[in-house]
């Protein structure tokens, strides 16, 4: 792949004695939409968390836009990156969480405006305009001055997405964003994700159990099993025509409920 926006080379992550990632190799193209699926414990959330710098890999190299994320040069040596280095790269990555993590002490509009103002020091008026647009895009233009605790789960997740989008990341990570929602609220969130995907500009990695959605939206589906990438390919191939036993038994659970 020429000029991938993100690469993983032999990335390992252990928690104490337990090794969760056992050598992840991955290239993500700019604007590529990837669905990351796998059984619980397979490490899929850990993969995106190491990219978002929420976890530090025990070994291996992650690059973002050509730059080494977790290591930096100091003189002639490579050392563990300091916070300044991490911050210089982390801005290119955004994340939406399973449990929303909205700021409860701010209104929806303030939630969206917070980071561009506090982190990027952008001009308040233009941030406000962009935030309002983003909230309207996710269908919450009428809830600008409400507080998160006044919203339903689906609405909260949409605000969380608007908040992440206002920062204009190059890569957006979605950590099982519909798993904590009541079933009837899942659709509205998936709609928004589909819109975001169709706009085209960002790479997206969705850790998800929504197989039909993955089939519809993703350019590539990656099946993670036991800490390694077991299968990777176009959605139709992976979800419908694979002969990998583990993958088939994993998907079997979803077949009956989809």
């Amino acid at each position, binding site marked *: 792949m020429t000029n991938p926006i993100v690469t993983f080379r032999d990335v390992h992550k252990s928690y104490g004695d337990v090794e969760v990632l056992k050598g992840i190799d991955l290239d993500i193209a700019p604007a590529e939409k990837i669905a990351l699926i796998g059984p619980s414990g397979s490490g899929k959330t850990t993969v995106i968390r190491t990219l978002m710098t929420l976890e530090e890999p025990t070994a291996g190299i992650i690059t973002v836009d050509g730059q080494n994320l977790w290591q930096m040069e100091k003189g002639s040596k490579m050392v563990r990156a300091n916070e300044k280095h991490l911050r210089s790269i982390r801005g290119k*990555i955004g994340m939406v969480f399973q449990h929303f993590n*909205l700021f409860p*002490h701010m209104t929806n509009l303030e939630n969206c405006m917070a980071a561009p103002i506090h*982190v990027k020091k952008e001009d308040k008026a233009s941030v406000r305009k962009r935030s309002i647009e983003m909230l309207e895009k996710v269908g919450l233009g009428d809830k600008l001055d409400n507080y998160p605790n*006044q919203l339903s789960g689906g609405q909260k997740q949409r605000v969380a997405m608007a*908040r992440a989008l206002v920062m204009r990341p190059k890569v957006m990570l979605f950590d099982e964003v519909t798993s904590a929602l009541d079933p009837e609220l899942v659709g509205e969130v998936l709609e928004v994700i589909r819109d975001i995907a169709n706009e085209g500009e960002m790479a997206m990695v969705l850790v998800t159990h929504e197989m039909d959605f993955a089939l519809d939206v993703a350019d590539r589906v990656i099946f993670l099993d036991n800490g390694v990438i077991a299968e990777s390919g176009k959605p139709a191939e992976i979800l419908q025509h694979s002969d990998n036993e583990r993958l088939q038994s994993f998907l079997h659970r979803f077949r009956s409920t989809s």
Partner: protein
Amino acid sequence: MRIGNLDLERIFPFITRIKENFSWETVTESFPIIFKGIGITLGLTIASFAVALLFGFVWLLLRKIPFKPLSWLFTWIMEFIRSTPPLVQLFFLYYGWPNVPVVGVTLDPFVCGVLGIGIHFSTYISEVYRSGIESVDKGQWEAAKALNYSAGKKWTKVILPQALPPTIPMLGNYLIIMFKEVPLTATIGVIGILQLARDYGAQYWRYLEPLTIVALLFLVMSYASSLIIRRMEKKINERTGKKPAGTAVQ
């Protein structure tokens, strides 16, 4: 003294004794003398409360120093101050500090009082801050990181606005507790309302009325403080958008 048909004085004869012994004349005479000390008593309480609030943060920072031996040392010092009686600390500052090599100076009694009580209670207030900070949902830290917040902004814009408002009632409690510790400073020569009451008593042989006045003055000051704290709590909760339960849409 009667309530309805009940003659209280027959049931509780000591009421008559107190009435006979309580001299309203003494009250009017001693009150202005005692009240002169209200500035010192109130001022000392407020100053030491300010010191306690400030040093509460200082302890948090000192305990987070990456260099283990230093952070361990400061944790131990904090524990030591928390576990020894404030009176002992007052005596140490007033009688002992002048003799400390290099940094030892003689301290004015009021300053001793402010530092002694202030720093003693700062150790408790530090724990109040810590519990407030730990009660902030872990996801908030992750959201701040995902949005690339710097450490400073993360604290001032995300964490502290959530951590501190719930601690206000507890901080208000400590203010009232500190009001009651301030009379200890009489032992190192601070002339507040208690000491003035005792002086009056020593001079005129009447203790009951002056000490009653002192108790009532403390009651008024504490109660006024708790009202102020409660109002602050309401204002801050409004500002940080805590809506009453039940307005959530489902």
